[in-house]
């Protein structure tokens, strides 16, 4: 077990990473989603030749450009943090992160920078069709960039297609396709990009509604709302479907996260899904009185997790104390197994230091043995801490974030359906309540989007890599004060940049479609 842990170092490093990731994620979903709508609008322009559609395309392209410019390179700070604050982690993951991130970097550079330049500088300089192709390729490039990041993230949630090499102390890729096409990665990618589409559709509707309220740019606003409502409704249905797929994957590979998402302490057959609930205090929850209030839909959690309304869904206590009937190991048992794996690694290190080649070869073979990997190494991360509670995620944060995301997600679906209904009946301009409400839905979309990542990342705590590397072992041994200083610096920088973005964005919205595009 790790002794004399500097918890302030671990906590500040986590806080700093969370701050950076959440700030980065303010910009990404709009970029992912709005590029598709811009491409659709430009396609209509090219098909119809109607200059109003060109104006509409250029207006949204301007807002995309502002968002893209302010957000660009904010993700690189996370890579800096890997090297500085999480050096054990960044070494341990080996080429699993290196390969996808290198592909992402090359794709982002060649696809996005080339085609974005054509999008903004190419009006009247390249043919209409070539420009349209560049716009579609920008959308495709941006979303494919996200693919590689999400593949890397999915591997951390469910390490697959790799093997640990004690000689290098790194995980090495054994099957690239297993990493790329892991069901967790596919669901995560689809769920993430479609949630970006929903956010972007809400953004377009909200701003268009503001124009309608101000009785400005009416044609632009009505046409934009039509495109965004159709796009948003389709995307929100897809978000729900991929969310269901993600839940099934979580049930399989991170069942403790699922239990935390639902505040399920005691496993049960025919488990109900809590639609709305208020959790009791930690003491009460651990004593079995979990909810102060809840509305539950019977059997739905069993169905959502395993596709069978009668199936057993394990609770937090089942993972903490074990449930032999369901074949679930207790956390103390996993801790023991993790220690065996750490012990083998320690012996390897000592044999290597002593130059005992026979011993190092024999232990290296052990780490390649399927039975050892399945029974011991897969619990390697449990060997770092003796406290059972350390391995439990923050239940209230995970539960509330999940429910905020889901409730808002279904709310957005209804919102798009209503907007589409009013638009189809030609009543959108007269629906003052909805026009006033629509701009306020934009921050709701950002809250839902951030909540999704809180579920994904906090729900899997304490792991940086599921079951293999907890945060206490992943963190670099540096001065906690230095992390606090950079945290404060980032907080100030991010706030200034966010204010700059909002100011430029608001000014661009107020100006409307004049001064469009990237050039005069």
């Amino acid at each position, binding site marked *: 077990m*790790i*002794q004399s842990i500097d918890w302030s170092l671990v906590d500040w490093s986590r806080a700093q990473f969370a701050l950076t990731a959440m700030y980065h994620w303010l910009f990404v979903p709009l970029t992912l989603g709005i590029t598709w709508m811009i491409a659709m609008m430009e396609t209509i322009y090219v098909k119809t030749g109607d200059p109003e559609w060109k104006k509409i395309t250029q207006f949204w392209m*301007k807002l995309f*450009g*502002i968002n893209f*410019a*302010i957000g*660009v*390179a904010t993700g*690189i*700070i996370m890579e*800096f*943090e890997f*090297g*500085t604050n999480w*050096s*054990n982690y*960044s*070494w*341990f993951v080996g080429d699993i992160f290196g390969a996808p991130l290198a592909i992402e970097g090359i794709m982002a550079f060649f696809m996005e920078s080339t085609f974005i*330049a054509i999008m*903004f*500088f*190419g009006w009247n*300089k390249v043919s209409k069709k070539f420009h349209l192709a560049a716009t579609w390729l920008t959308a495709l490039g941006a979303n494919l960039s996200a693919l590689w990041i999400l593949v890397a993230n999915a591997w951390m949630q469910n390490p697959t297609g790799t093997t640990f090499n*004690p*000689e*290098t*102390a*790194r995980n090495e890729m054994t099957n690239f396709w297993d990493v790329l096409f892991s069901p967790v990665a596919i669901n995560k990618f689809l769920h993430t990009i479609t949630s970006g589409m929903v956010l972007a559709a809400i953004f377009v509707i909200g701003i268009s509604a503001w124009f309608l309220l101000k009785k400005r740019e009416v044609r632009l606003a009505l046409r934009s709302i039509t495109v965004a409502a159709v796009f948003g409704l389709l995307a929100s249905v897809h978000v729900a479907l991929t969310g269901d797929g993600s839940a099934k994957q979580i049930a399989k590979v991170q069942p403790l996260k699922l239990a935390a998402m639902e505040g399920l302490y005691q496993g049960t057959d025919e488990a109900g899904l809590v639609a709305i609930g208020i959790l009791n205090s930690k003491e009460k929850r651990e004593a079995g009185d979990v909810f102060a209030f809840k509305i539950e839909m019977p059997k739905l959690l069993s169905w959502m997790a395993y596709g069978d309304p009668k199936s057993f869904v394990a609770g937090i206590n089942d993972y903490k104390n074990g449930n032999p009937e369901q074949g679930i190991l207790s956390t103390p048992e996993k801790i023991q197994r993790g*220690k065996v794996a*750490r*012990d083998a*690694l*320690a*012996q390897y*290190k*000592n044999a*290597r230091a002593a130059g005992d080649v026979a011993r190092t070869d024999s232990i290296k073979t052990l780490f390649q043995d399927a039975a050892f990997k399945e029974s011991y190494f897969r619990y390697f991360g449990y*060997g770092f801490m003796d406290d059972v509670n350390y391995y439990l995620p923050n239940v209230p944060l995970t539960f509330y974030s999940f429910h905020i995301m889901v409730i808002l997600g279904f709310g957005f679906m209804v919102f798009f359906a209503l907007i589409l209904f009013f638009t189809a009946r030609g009543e959108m301009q007269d629906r003052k309540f909805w026009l006033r409400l629509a701009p306020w839905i934009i921050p709701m979309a950002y809250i839902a989007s951030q909540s999704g990542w809180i579920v994904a990342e906090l729900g899997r705590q304490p792991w940086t890599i599921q079951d293999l590397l907890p945060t206490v*072992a992943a963190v*670099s*041994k*540096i001065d906690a004060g*230095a992390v606090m*200083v*950079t945290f404060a*610096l980032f907080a100030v*920088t991010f706030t200034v*940049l966010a204010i*700059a973005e909002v100011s*430029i964005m608001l*000014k*661009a919205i107020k100006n409307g479609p004049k*001064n*469009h*595009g*990237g*050039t*005069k």
Partner: protein
Amino acid sequence: MGGRILAVTTRILNFYIDGFRNMSSWGRSVWIIILIKLFILFAVIRIFLMPDILKKNFKTDQERSMHVLENLTQNQQL
């Protein structure tokens, strides 16, 4: 062949130069922000505040792997 490559390169360069020269005011504003941000990121944060610890402290991959092995097995009872 060489002349054709040069012509294409010149056209591409002119495309970018024209684009930047005729950029609108909002385009200039965001480019200023991008440049300031990149300067802060790479010239300040990367160099002075957030170095790659393993690259900075160890010369070879073998030394780095030994260091991480040491960290991963620290205090483990043998």
